[in-house]
C-alpha cells in the first residue's frame, strides 16, 4: 500500500482533454432488467464469423451457445444472454463505423432467466439442474474435469481454480466466448494461448481508461475489486508468471483505493500466502495512456518495436474488464453474457454505468435511464476521441461496447473534433506542427495527411502510417480542424484492401498458370495418344502391306507353278486365267473361312442355348 506509486517512465506526446467522467460515476452500477427483445450479432469478435447452431423457433436458455467455431480459427462464439425463444435470424444494422448490416439472432425473452448450468449467482437454480445442455458438455469434456467442477461447488470455491491445469482454464475461457473488452474485441483465448508459447514475465492489466466520458472500468473496480483480483490471479496462474502491474490513471482515486484494500487483505490472508505479486501502478492522467503500447511503456519502460507484438517483449496486456470476465467464466462458470456500459453525455437524463446483457437494444437502456434530454443530437459508440457515430438507437450492445455517448453537437465539438468532423469545417493546414508534438507514436501527421489526401498510399506507408493507433490526439489539437484521423483511417483501410487485392491477384496468377499448365499437359497427352494411334495404324497398315506382299509372292509362286504345270497340258491362253485369280481367291477363301467359322460358332451357340432352353422347359414340365 505504501508503495503504490512507484517509478514510472514517461510517454511521448498525448493531450489533456476534458474528461467529464464525474456525471456517470455518481451512482453505482445499475443492473438493468431483462429487455423484452435481444438482438445478438453473430460476429462480435475479431476473426471469422462463427457458424450458427440454432434455428428460428428454438427455445434457448441463458448461457447456451448460439454459434460454434471451427478448431484453430480466430474468433469467439456467442451465447444467449437470457432464456427465451428465437423469433428471427436476419440481417440487422451493426454497431460498426460502416453502419453495415450483419446476421443477428433476435430473441424474445421470457423473463425467467433459466440457465443451462449450475452456476452461482444465477436465479432459478432448480430449473438449471435439469438442463444439462451443450454448454455444460462444452465445459466439462473429461471426467477429470467434471470432478473438478463438482469440487468447485464445494464450500471454498474461490480457490478451486488452482486445481485446474492451464489447458482446462484456457478451454473454459474459449468456450465462454471472452474477448478483449477494452474495445478491440480480440479473442482472449487466442491471445493467452499465444502468450503461453512465448516467455513472458509481466502481465499488464489495463485499467487506465484514458478516454473522456468512459467510466465503466472505474465503476467495475470500485464495486467488484475482489473479483477482478481473482480474475487476475487466474490469468497469472494460467500464464505461470509472478508479476502483474495494474495501470490506473490518477483520476480514479476510489478505484485505486478499492483495489488496494483487496490486495492488502489478500496479503494478510493465510491461504493467499503464496499470492502472486500484483501491484497497482498509478499513471498520470493523460490521453492516450490507455493504449496497450503506451501503457506498457509507462509501466515498464519497454517500447514495443514497430511491427512486433507486445508478447515478443515479454509482456502481455489485458483489459481489467477482461480479467473480470475470466473470473466469471472460471469461478462462476458463466460465459460472457453481459458487460458494464457507460451511458454518458448531456443527451441522456441519467448518465451512469449499467450492467447490460449483450444484445440489449440501446433504446431500451436509454428508456430505463429516463430517456433523452432535448440536447441529444449525436450518438457515439466509444468515447469522443476514438468512437464512431451510430445512425440509430435500434442497435444492440455488443462485447466491444464500452460506452454509449449521447451528446449535443456543441459539447461534442468541445470534447473532440475527431468524431465531430462533419460538423466542423476544415481549413487548410498551416504546418503548425502541433499534431506531430502530440502524436504518441512519433509519427508526422501533417506529412501523412498530405500523402493520404493525394491518395499516395505508398508514401503514407513509408511514413509508417500502419503504426498509427488512431487515438485522435492530432485531430484534437489541429487548429485548422482537419479530421486527420479520418484521413488516416481511410488510408489504412485503403492500404489493407490494396494488400488484399495483391494477395488475391497473386493467388489468381498461380491458379491461372496452373490452369494453363494443365491445359498444355492435356494437349500434350492427347497429341501423344494421337501420335501413338497414328503409329499403330501405320504399323498395322505396313503389316498388312507386308502380309499382302507375302501373299502376292506366294500367289505368284503358285500361279507360276500352275503355269508351269499346266504349260505342259494347256496352251498359252490358260496362263491369263490362272495368273489373275490367286490373290482375291486366297483372300476370299480366308474371309469365307472366317465367316463360315463365325456362323458355325453362332450355330453352336444357338444350339447350346436351345438345348439349355429345352432343359429348362423340361425342368419346368417336371
Amino acid at each position: 500500500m505504501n508503495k503504490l506509486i512507484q517509478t514510472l517512465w514517461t510517454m511521448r506526446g498525448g493531450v489533456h482533454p476534458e474528461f467529464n467522467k464525474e456525471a456517470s460515476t455518481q451512482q453505482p452500477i445499475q443492473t438493468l432488467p431483462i429487455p423484452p427483445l435481444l438482438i445478438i450479432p453473430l460476429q462480435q469478435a475479431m476473426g471469422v464469423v462463427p457458424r450458427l447452431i440454432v434455428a428460428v423457433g428454438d427455445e434457448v436458455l441463458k448461457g447456451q451457445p448460439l454459434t460454434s467455431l471451427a478448431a484453430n480459427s480466430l474468433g469467439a462464439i456467442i451465447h444467449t444472454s437470457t432464456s427465451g425463444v428465437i423469433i428471427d435470424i436476419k440481417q440487422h444494422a451493426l454497431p460498426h463505423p460502416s453502419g453495415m448490416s450483419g446476421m443477428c439472432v433476435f430473441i424474445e425473452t421470457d423473463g425467467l432467466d433459466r440457465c443451462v448450468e449450475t452456476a452461482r449467482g444465477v436465479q432459478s437454480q432448480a430449473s438449471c439442474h435439469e438442463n444439462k445442455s451443450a454448454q455444460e458438455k462444452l465445459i466439462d469434456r473429461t471426467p477429470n474435469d467434471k470432478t473438478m467442477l463438482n469440487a468447485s461447488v464445494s464450500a471454498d470455491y474461490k480457490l478451486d481454480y488452482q486445481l485446474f491445469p492451464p489447458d482446462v482454464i484456457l478451454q473454459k475461457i474459449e468456450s465462454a466466448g471472452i474477448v478483449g473488452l477494452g474495445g478491440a474485441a480480440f479473442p482472449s483465448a487466442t491471445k493467452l494461448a499465444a502468450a503461453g508459447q512465448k516467455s513472458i514475465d509481466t502481465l499488464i492489466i489495463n485499467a487506465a481508461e484514458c478516454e473522456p466520458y468512459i467510466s465503466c472500468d472505474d465503476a467495475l473496480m470500485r464495486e467488484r475489486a475482489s473479483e477482478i483480483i481473482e480474475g487476475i490471479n487466474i490469468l497469472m496462474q494460467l500464464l505461470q508468471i509472478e508479476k502483474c502491474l495494474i495501470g490506473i490513471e490518477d483520476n480514479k482515486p476510489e478505484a485505486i483505493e478499492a483495489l488496494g484494500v483487496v490486495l492488502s487483505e489478500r496479503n494478510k490472508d493465510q491461504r493467499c500466502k503464496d499470492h502472486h505479486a500484483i501491484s497497482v501502478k498509478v499513471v498520470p492522467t493523460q490521453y492516450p495512456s490507455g493504449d496497450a503500447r503506451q501503457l506498457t511503456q509507462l509501466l515498464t519502460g519497454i517500447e514495443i518495436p514497430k511491427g512486433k507484438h507486445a508478447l515478443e517483449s515479454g509482456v502481455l496486456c489485458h483489459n481489467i474488464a477482461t480479467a473480470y470476465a475470466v473470473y466469471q467464466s472460471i469461478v462462476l462458470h458463466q460465459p460472457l453474457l453481459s458487460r458494464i456500459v457507460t451511458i454518458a453525455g448531456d443527451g441522456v437524463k441519467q448518465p451512469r454505468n449499467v450492467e447490460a446483457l449483450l444484445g440489449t437494444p440501446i433504446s431500451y437502456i436509454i428508456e430505463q435511464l429516463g430517456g433523452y434530454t432535448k440536447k441529444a443530437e449525436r450518438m457515439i459508440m466509444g468515447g469522443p476521441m476514438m468512437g464512431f457515430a451510430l445512425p440509430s438507437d435500434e442497435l444492440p450492445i455488443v462485447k466491444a461496447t464500452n460506452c454509449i455517448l449521447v451528446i449535443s453537437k456543441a459539447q461534442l465539438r468541445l470534447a473532440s473534433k475527431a468524431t465531430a468532423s462533419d460538423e466542423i469545417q476544415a481549413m487548410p493546414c498551416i504546418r503548425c506542427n502541433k499534431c506531430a508534438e502530440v502524436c504518441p507514436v512519433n509519427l508526422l501527421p501533417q506529412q501523412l495527411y498530405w500523402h493520404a489526401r493525394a491518395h499516395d498510399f505508398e508514401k503514407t506507408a513509408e511514413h509508417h502510417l500502419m503504426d498509427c493507433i488512431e487515438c485522435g490526439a492530432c485531430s484534437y489539437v489541429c487548429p485548422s480542424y482537419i479530421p486527420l484521423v479520418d484521413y488516416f483511417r481511410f488510408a489504412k483501410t485503403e492500404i489493407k484492401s490494396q494488400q488484399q487485392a495483391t494477395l488475391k491477384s497473386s493467388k489468381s496468377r498461380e491458379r491461372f498458370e496452373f490452369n494453363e499448365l494443365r491445359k498444355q499437359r492435356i494437349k500434350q497427352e492427347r497429341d501423344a495418344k494421337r501420335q501413338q494411334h497414328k503409329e499403330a495404324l501405320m504399323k498395322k497398315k505396313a503389316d498388312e502391306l507386308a502380309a499382302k506382299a507375302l501373299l502376292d509372292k506366294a500367289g505368284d509362286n503358285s500361279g507360276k507353278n500352275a503355269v508351269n504345270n499346266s504349260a505342259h497340258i494347256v496352251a498359252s491362253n490358260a496362263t491369263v486365267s490362272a495368273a489373275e485369280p490367286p490373290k482375291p481367291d486366297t483372300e476370299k477363301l480366308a474371309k469365307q473361312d472366317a465367316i463360315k467359322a463365325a456362323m458355325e460358332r453362332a450355330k453352336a451357340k444357338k444350339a447350346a442355348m436351345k438345348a439349355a432352353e429345352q432343359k429348362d422347359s423340361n425342368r419346368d414340365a417336371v
Partner: protein
Amino acid sequence: MLSAILVLVGMAVFFGLLLGYSAQKFKVEGDPVVDQIDQLLPQTQCGQCSYPGCRPYAEAIAKQEIGINHCPPGGEATIQALADLLDVEAVPLDEELLQATIPTVAIIREETCIGCTLCIQACPVDAIVGAAKLMHTVIADECTGCDLCLPPCPVDCIDMIPVTQTTENWVWPEPSGLRDSQGQSLAKISVNVEPVTVEAKR
C-alpha cells in the same frame, strides 16, 4: 599522339571484351520487365485488353505494342503503377473500355444450370466446380470476375454480381476534404485560390 590512340584503342578493346564477357556470363533468362509488369496486373485473366490473359498483355506492354491503359479491372491504380514502373506518363483508361469497373463475382443460378461444363472449361482460374449433367457452382473467393464464363453458357444462367461488402473489406470513406466558410469544397487547392479567411477559433 600515337600512344594516346593506342591507349584509347586498348581501353576500347578491353572494355569491349569485358562487356561482351559479362553479357554472356550474367545473361538474364526471359524478360524481367515482363515479370514486373505482370506483378502489377490484377490477374483477372479477363482478356478485355484484347490479349488472352494478363501475362500476354504484360509481354505486349514490354514490347510497346499497346498502351498501359487497357486494363479495366486494374483501373487507375494499375495505370499509375505501370506508369511509375515504365517511367511513362499515366494516361486515363482507354475510352472503349470505360465501363463500370466495380469488382464483380460470378454466380450460377443453380436451378437453371444444365451441367454442360462449358463454363468450367472457360474459367481461367478454375473457380467453377461441377461435373457433366450435374449442377455447377462458383467458388466466390477464387472468382476474378472476368466474365469469360458468360458467353459459353447455353442457358444464360450465370450472373455477375458486385462483390458483397462486409465489415471485413469495408473501406473507411475519405473525408470530404477541405471546405471554406460557405461550404465549398477546397479539395483541389491550386496556386490561384484566393486566401481563405480563417476565423479565430478557440
